[in-house]
């Protein structure tokens, strides 16, 4: 407690009040995790939680014996990593939302993955225990919580936990779940860059448009934020959920290992040595590693392609935010330990054309911002009138005919938000509809990330296209999505909160986003092909139905002609040339125009109950019949 009073000196009278709320901010990082709290002085302070440091290495070691003490977190765990690489989980955040089949997961990774689970990452550790990334993350949170309680002398029950802006729905849910497992009420998930800006905004009372360049251990985020009178608007976010300082270490470790045999232990040692060398090279021009001289230039050469990978995401975010390149930015905030690397700072300076801000410790800034947010959410009378308006990081949509994605909510939409879309049945008498919720920027279902699938049943059996199902998306202030499907006639409805089993991801978000641009043209072609195929099927079906019920209106020659055009269209749909399909659709249209006119005539005849169409002049026609004629004429054009 003595230490606490020292820190909170300026507003000591409030210290107790502020602390009894026990609402902390937690930065659950890839490499290090931190916990911070706003004290009586109204300022956030990071708490020393591991051997006097505010940084708790996000490393969890599972010792052989069961029971308490068998799980070790932090520096002590990191020290054991080299001896027990398989029982010590580092950078677990990178496995959140990753499949074990992912080549990146296996690359240089010393873990023993438990078998039998399709796609789920599960680590097999000491004593045959099997743990998943959520459980490992919960151990880190539990350690932060109990050590903060020790420091503060009060119970800590509520927390704001930060996540990369890029985390998708599954990863957010997993993080919340980890918080709950650790006995914390998660007040809010906060995007890391937003938290950083919050810390800066309060300290500096900044106004203007800012870029937050966050290069951590395992993730890269770029955010464009607008700050006006204490209100933070997130204008755009982007990034790469699998890029960070760990990659720098690995790049250097590759050099150190060379052609050596790669045992788990040797790999871990190489990575540790590389990490140390990287940190030393921030100041030194060269270091000695494993009896070799590594210069800063050598390191920079190895990591240059990695640093440059951050460029396109930055430019895209600026564009999404409507900020012209080179103008309109008032500052760039650096977040994440990896921004200490001189080559990174140089790159940022050149990219944005200005000297980046780094006044606040880039390792602590996110936790400090989270503490501010926790304070805002729990204080009776908030000391700062600050509000955050966040956006959706990726577009959300639904699967439609032919494996296409219909986007309902575009990326970078301010949340909370909702959107609705009506869908109709495709087949006669269809009583169920599959609702497939997707996330991503690409046009095809197979290229996007599947969030949830469910079936709305109980649709009244009606001819195709008559039953209508309204699907509504609602995204709340945490960025979590719920989906409702409702059939309009009967009111049958179903709602789900998209909550996929944590850590189940088969696609990589950053790949999806980056490739959405590379594949823009390819996607358009694929979409046109599918659109035309769907259209062809519809027309073929209609023609078949009409031939069946009104075939008597045709002479055998006429019928044969239509049928041969139908066959040609069927053939075209087997191919992948959308021009060809379109052309055949038009030919069939043309060949069946006269038939359509006769069918229409017969319909009108029946509608007019016994009157023959011939009795009516155009002028005397009922509005309904007139409309039918007009439609017919248009069709013939």
């Amino acid at each position: 407690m003595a230490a606490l009073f020292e820190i909170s000196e300026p507003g000591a009278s409030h210290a107790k009040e502020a602390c009894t709320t026990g609402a902390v901010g937690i930065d659950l990082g890839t490499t290090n995790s931190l916990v911070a709290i706003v004290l009586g002085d109204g300022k956030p302070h990071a708490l020393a939680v591991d051997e006097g440091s505010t940084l708790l290495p996000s490393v969890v070691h599972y010792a052989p014996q069961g029971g308490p003490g068998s799980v070790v977190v932090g520096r002590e765990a990191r020290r054991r990593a080299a001896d027990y690489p398989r029982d010590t989980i580092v950078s677990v955040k990178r496995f959140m939302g990753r499949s074990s089949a992912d080549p990146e997961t296996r690359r240089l990774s010393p873990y023993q993955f438990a078998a039998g689970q399709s796609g789920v990452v599960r680590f097999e550790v000491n004593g045959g225990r099997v743990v998943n990334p959520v459980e490992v993350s919960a151990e880190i949170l539990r350690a932060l919580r109990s050590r903060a309680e020790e420091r503060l002398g009060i119970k800590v029950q509520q927390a704001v936990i930060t996540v990369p802006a890029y985390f998708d729905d599954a990863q957010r849910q997993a993080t919340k779940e980890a918080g709950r497992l650790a006995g914390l009420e998660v007040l809010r998930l906060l995007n890391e860059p937003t938290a950083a800006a919050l810390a800066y905004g309060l300290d500096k009372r900044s106004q203007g448009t800012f870029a937050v360049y966050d290069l951590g251990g395992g993730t890269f985020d770029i955010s464009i934020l607008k700050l006006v009178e204490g209100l933070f608007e997130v204008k755009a976010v982007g990034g790469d959920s699998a890029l960070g300082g760990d990659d720098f270490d690995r790049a250097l470790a590759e050099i150190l290992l060379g052609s050596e045999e790669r045992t788990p232990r040797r790999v871990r040692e190489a990575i540790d040595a590389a990490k140390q060398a990287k940190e030393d090279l921030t100041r030194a021009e060269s270091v000695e590693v494993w009896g070799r001289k590594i210069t800063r230039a050598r390191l920079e050469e190895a990591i240059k392609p990695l640093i440059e990978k951050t460029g396109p995401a930055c430019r895209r975010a600026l564009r999404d935010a409507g900020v012209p390149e080179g103008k309109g930015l008032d500052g760039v905030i650096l977040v994440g330990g990896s921004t200490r690397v001189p080559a990174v700072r140089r790159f940022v300076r050149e990219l944005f054309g200005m000297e980046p801000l780094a006044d606040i410790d880039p390792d602590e800034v996110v936790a400090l911002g989270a503490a501010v947010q926790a304070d805002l959410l729990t204080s009776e009378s908030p000391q700062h009138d600050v509000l955050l308006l966040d956006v959706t990081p990726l577009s959300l949509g639904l699967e439609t005919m032919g494996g296409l994605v219909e986007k309902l909510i575009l990326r970078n939409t301010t949340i909370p938000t909702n959107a609705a879309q009506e869908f109709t049945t495709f087949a006669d008498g269809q009583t169920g509809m599959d609702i497939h919720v997707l996330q991503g920027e690409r046009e095809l279902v197979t290229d996007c990330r599947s969030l949830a699938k469910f079936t709305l049943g109980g649709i009244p059996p009606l001819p195709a296209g008559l039953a209508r199902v309204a699907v509504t998306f609602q995204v709340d202030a945490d960025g979590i999505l719920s989906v409702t499907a409702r059939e309009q006639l009967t009111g049958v409805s179903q709602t789900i909160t998209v909550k996929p089993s944590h850590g189940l991801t088969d696609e990589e978000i950053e790949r999806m986003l980056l490739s959405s641009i590379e594949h823009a043209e390819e996607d358009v072609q694929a979409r046109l092909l599918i659109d035309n195929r769907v259209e062809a099927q519809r027309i073929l079906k209609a023609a078949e139905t009409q031939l069946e019920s009104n075939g008597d209106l045709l002479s055998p020659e006429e019928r044969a002609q239509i049928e041969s055009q139908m066959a040609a269209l069927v053939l075209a749909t087997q191919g992948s040339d959308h021009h060809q399909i379109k052309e055949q659709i038009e030919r069939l249209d043309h060949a069946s125009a006269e038939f359509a006119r006769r069918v229409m005539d017969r319909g009108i005849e029946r509608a007019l109950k016994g009157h023959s169409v011939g009795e009516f002049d155009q002028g005397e026609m009922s509005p309904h019949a007139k409309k039918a004629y007009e439609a017919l004429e248009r069709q013939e054009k």
Partner: protein
Amino acid sequence: MRKCWQCGGEVAPADALCPSCGKVQPPIPAGTQVDKFALLGFGQSLDLDEAALDEKFRGLSRKLHPDRFARASAQERRYSLEQTTLLNDAYKTLKDPARRAEHLLELRGVKGEPKMSPEFLEQTLEDRERLMEAKASGQPLDELARGVREKRDATLAEARALLGNGGDLSRAAELIARMRYYARYLDEVEGRGAEI
């Protein structure tokens, strides 16, 4: 007029907060036509002061955002979520001139895709071709952009006049649809919008 669920005072349909007691109100029932102008405290108009719109949006966000209701009742938290959702949508609509114009038409009963004249479509194809050529040969695009900007401004002026004096609304709808083409063209000149 509705009644406030808390104090029973009168609340206008577009009011998110009760003018008497300041409590957050349930949103307009689903299926009702929402006047997004009224929601943000503006009259229905094609022209809006963007700075005033931003200001109003921020002011309302400050009061309505779910973060402001973290300690409120479940009912108020739900109202806050729904009202903020409406607010964000209204702001997005009004912020974009083309969307704003479409909403204005919608409020006046004009819906659906307007028919574009073949002459106009031909013209846009030509404009686009010229843009592609200029891009391919590396010519400066300023001249082309200026031409399209002038057309856009003239179109906007005509649409504004029609909407102002209650003229031919379907003509106005077509003009506003043209604005979208112009906007897309200008986006392309400035290298935006290759995605989506």
